[in-house]
């Protein structure tokens, strides 16, 4: 550190890693994984406890807030965690900057569109009439 240089040691190294940033992404992946651990156990347990897996039973299940709210969380957190995971894989294996950007952008669009479709369907079940 030369005289008159007031930057801190952390300031000097921040952003210099091969990925330049990513601490938050890393942590988000972990936090969403813990959420999905809980929501995944909820989903499996719910499917096991339903008397039947026919459409009527599933509509009743997802029409009630106790089913609709965790399912909405599962969809949102699931798509987010999947997107974060795909970014790690793409960043690792796609060397070319342009191709990497294109892949990551495509994944972002897919995840947002897929999440919107799933949430819209869930909304129709949750707010619709029980057939």
């Amino acid at each position, binding site marked *: 550190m030369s005289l008159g240089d007031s930057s801190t040691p952390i300031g000097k190294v921040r952003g210099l890693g091969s990925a330049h940033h990513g601490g938050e992404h890393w942590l988000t992946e*972990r936090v969403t*994984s*813990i959420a999905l*651990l809980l929501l*995944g156990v909820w989903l*499996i347990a719910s499917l*096991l406890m339903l008397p*039947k*897996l026919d*459409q009527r039973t*599933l*509509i009743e299940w*997802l029409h009630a807030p106790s089913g609709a709210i965790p*399912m909405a969380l599962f*969809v949102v957190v*699931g*798509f987010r965690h*999947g*997107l974060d*995971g*795909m970014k790690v*894989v793409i960043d690792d294996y796609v060397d070319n900057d342009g191709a990497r950007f294109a892949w990551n952008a495509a994944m972002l669009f897919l995840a947002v569109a*897929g999440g919107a*479709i*799933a949430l819209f*369907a*869930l909304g*129709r*079940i949750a707010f*619709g009439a029980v057939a």
Partner: protein
Amino acid sequence: MASTRSRPLSPHLSIWRWGPNMAASILHRASGVALTIGGLAVLTWWLWAIASGPDAYATFTAAVQHPLGLVVLVGLTWSFFQHLLTGIRHLIMDTGAIFELQINKTSAVLTFIGAIVLTVLLWAYFLGVAK
């Protein structure tokens, strides 16, 4: 003194020796990609089918009861449990624990056994109840 001899790069896929720990690592990735692409697609289709009425739901159940559909669903279930168990293992490793060779290997093998056992148990229950 500069050597022109081509040296192996690290990581070099053809030089890695297969072991439980690296298998757990790559299986975690592969199952994560399978769940993101296949799992979220099936989840979205399932919700859409439930919301869209008896015909759409019948199309969905026909597809997943087809032998090929069943293979996909069982594969996704296995991916789910494998990713869940290796995910828990990675969360533990994030704390700096279980890096010792023996426990690292043993825990990797345990995720393989656990994922298969949970998949078999779940499908034994589903096929026993739903049919």
